[in-house]
């Protein structure tokens, strides 16, 4: 039921109601709300079991059922996805009010909800992979929603291709697990797990390959390049897909297969370090961006890095806790940013904003809540979850802890910078001076999300939903250091950016995104050139030259050889015939 409602809505909109935009929007919103109510119901009751069908059954070799897993993990994700999803659907009603492609947008959004819930509920690798690809596809459609803009079309293509690289690794990883265990169902893999642990190298490779899928989808280093470009899509999409849910799918996947990963120390260490590098890299780049959504995109990358770091440090609880709080405050930040963008008539450069705190009061307040949660200010949710991860790092791996702390400092720095430039100071453009508050349909989701961003971290609230990790009693030094980093970061941002009209600091390396795009362009150009040369050689020399022309040439050569005999002269034929007979007789009699 949870799954079928959004799917049905997507189908209905695509097939029947494309003409009537508002009706399509309402169907979609109703479907996702229904799905959310069902999710709540599923969450409350623990005794519901889903029906199980057999989908592919090659006896004894390959068996893929369509079945759902309903444990604490999937129930929590179900709630996050459908809850944040329904708020964002409602918000979209306002944001996409005058868009000509509204029906298409809502159809894709519904399809995305279906696919995302499918990932959460899948109980085997194959189902998960299919929904995983479906999510990638809907993400492609939604990023490229304004496909008439070249940049959006390019960004959609980039997102799709980049995640495909990771997905390829994911697929190979799945196949490796299947080869070793003979099953793709999670429970069976756990049951036959000893078969795979006996070979540590194989296990490590399989775990890292599966992690590749998460690297692509969760925009981890080195495949993070697509996420900032994905901000070309409509802002609610950025909030839903590229902040709260889809990118979290990678983390969810890692937690789901944690039993596999935790069996290999090498894999764990790799994952932890990739997460750490991503966190630092995202934060560094974010300090120099001037697009309101790109800053948030890089902060998403950075926060996802934290989650992956937590998985790499073998703590699923900390990762899920941060995912849970992050879903709320990052969706909130994106939606608030969207509200700013709408108020300023699609202006995204922060240097054209300023002084919005008095004009967009509610947006400012909710954005501030989100920002405080993001930088981990004590009473807000981000503080608790980030603190857990840092405490974990402090206990298990000190270098990672130091980098994590530096990232926390940078986070405080760039978020304060953003708030200062966007909302405080003097308005720096006409549209900023003439801004006015967004309609209530956009404001209400903001308030709801702000409420959750504020409270989701408290143990009283959070423990209703998930297992809150208890690593805190280890030391009081971690929260103290985190708060110091926060204060220093925010303070220095305040010093540098207060009442500035222009960007005062220029770090070209960060502004140009560490030259990743240039590097990939170079890499792809050269490898492709090389591969193309090989392919051209194979095609021209071996296939064309050898197989095709060779056959033709051989026949032609034989033909011209035989043509010598066809002189057309009757007597010549008769002579050859006679000679042939003579030769025949000679051979018969004398041999």
């Amino acid at each position, binding site marked *: 039921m949870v799954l079928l409602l959004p799917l049905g809505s997507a189908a209905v909109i695509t097939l029947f109601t494309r003409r009537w935009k508002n009706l399509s929007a309402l169907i979609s919103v109703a479907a996702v709300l229904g799905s959310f109510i069902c999710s709540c119901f599923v969450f409350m009751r623990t005794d519901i079991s889903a029906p199980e069908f057999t989908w592919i059954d090659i006896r004894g070799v390959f068996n893929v059922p369509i079945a759902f897993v309903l444990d604490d993990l999937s129930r929590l994700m179900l709630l996050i996805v459908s809850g944040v999803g329904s708020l964002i659907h409602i918000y979209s009603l306002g944001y996409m009010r005058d868009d000509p492609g509204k029906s298409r947008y809502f159809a894709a959004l519904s399809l995305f909800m279906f696919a995302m819930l499918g990932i959460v509920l899948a109980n085997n690798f194959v189902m998960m992979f299919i929904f995983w690809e479906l999510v990638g596809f809907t993400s492609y459609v939604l990023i490229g929603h304004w496909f008439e803009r070249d940049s959006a079309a390019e960004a959609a293509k980039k997102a799709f291709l980049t995640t495909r690289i990771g997905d390829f690794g994911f697929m190979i990883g799945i196949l490796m697990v299947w080869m070793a265990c003979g099953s793709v169902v999670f429970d069976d893999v756990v049951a036959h797990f000893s078969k795979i642990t006996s070979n540590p190298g194989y296990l490590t490779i399989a775990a890292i390959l599966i992690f590749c899928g998460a690297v692509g989808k969760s925009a981890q280093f080195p495949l993070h390049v697509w996420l900032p470009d994905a901000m070309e899509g409509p802002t609610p999409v950025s909030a839903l897909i590229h902040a709260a849910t889809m990118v979290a799918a990678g983390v969810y996947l890692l937690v789901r297969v944690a039993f596999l990963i935790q069996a290999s120390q090498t894999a764990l260490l790799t994952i932890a370090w990739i997460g750490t590098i991503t966190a630092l890299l995202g934060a560094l780049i974010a300090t120099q961006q001037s697009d309101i959504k790109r800053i948030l995109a890089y902060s998403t990358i950075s926060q996802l890095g934290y989650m992956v770091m937590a998985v790499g440090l073998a703590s699923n609880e900390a990762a899920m806790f941060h995912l849970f709080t992050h879903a709320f405050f990052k969706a909130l930040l994106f939606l608030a940013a969207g509200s700013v963008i709408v108020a300023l008539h699609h202006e995204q450069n922060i240097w054209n904003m300023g002084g919005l705190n008095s004009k967009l009061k509610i947006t400012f307040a909710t954005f501030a809540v989100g920002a405080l949660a993001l930088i981990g200010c004590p009473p807000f949710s981000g503080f608790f979850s980030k603190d857990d991860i840092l405490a974990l790092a402090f206990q298990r791996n000190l270098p990672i802890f130091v980098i994590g702390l530096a990232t926390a400092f940078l986070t405080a720095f760039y978020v304060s910078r953003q708030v200062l430039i966007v909302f405080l100071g003097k308005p720096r453009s006409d549209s900023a001076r003439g801004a006015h508050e967004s309609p209530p349909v956009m404001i209400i989701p903001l308030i709801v999300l702000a409420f959750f961003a504020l409270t989701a971290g408290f143990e009283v609230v959070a423990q209703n939903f998930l297992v809150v990790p208890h690593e805190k009693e280890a030391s009081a030094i971690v929260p103290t250091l985190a708060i110091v980093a926060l204060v220093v970061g925010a303070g220095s941002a305040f010093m540098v950016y207060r009442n500035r009209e222009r960007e005062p600091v220029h770090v070209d390396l960060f502004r140009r995104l560490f030259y990743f795009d240039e590097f990939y362009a170079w890499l792809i150009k050269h490898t492709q050139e090389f591969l193309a040369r090989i392919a051209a050689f194979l095609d021209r020399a071996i296939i064309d030259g050898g197989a095709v022309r060779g056959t033709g040439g051989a026949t032609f050569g034989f033909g011209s050889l035989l043509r010598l005999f066809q002189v057309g002269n009757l*007597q010549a034929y*008769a002579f050859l015939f006679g000679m042939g007979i003579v030769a025949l007789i000679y051979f018969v009699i004398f041999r």
Partner: protein
Amino acid sequence: MITLGHYLVVSGILFTIGFAGVMVRRNIIIILMALELMLNAANLSLVAFSRFHVDPTGAPNYNAQIFVFFIITVAAAEVAVGLAIVVALFRLRQTTHVEDITTLKF
């Protein structure tokens, strides 16, 4: 005394003349006549074999003579067909010389 060898030599000479005629003459009608000569050389050797291959009662072996009758019959039919073709060819090309009829050549 005329022996089998004499007959066979005559038959060989006739065959060679026929073969040479087929090789060197340019007129199709002459070539057909040379072909008849080759067939009759074969007939001659067959009759000679029949005459000299006697069983103990002194009767010759008649099988070869039956062969000769068949060959004469077939040769007659062949000449009829061959001449018909030559006539048709002459109507088409106004020639009976083999050098002028080389359209089978590629």
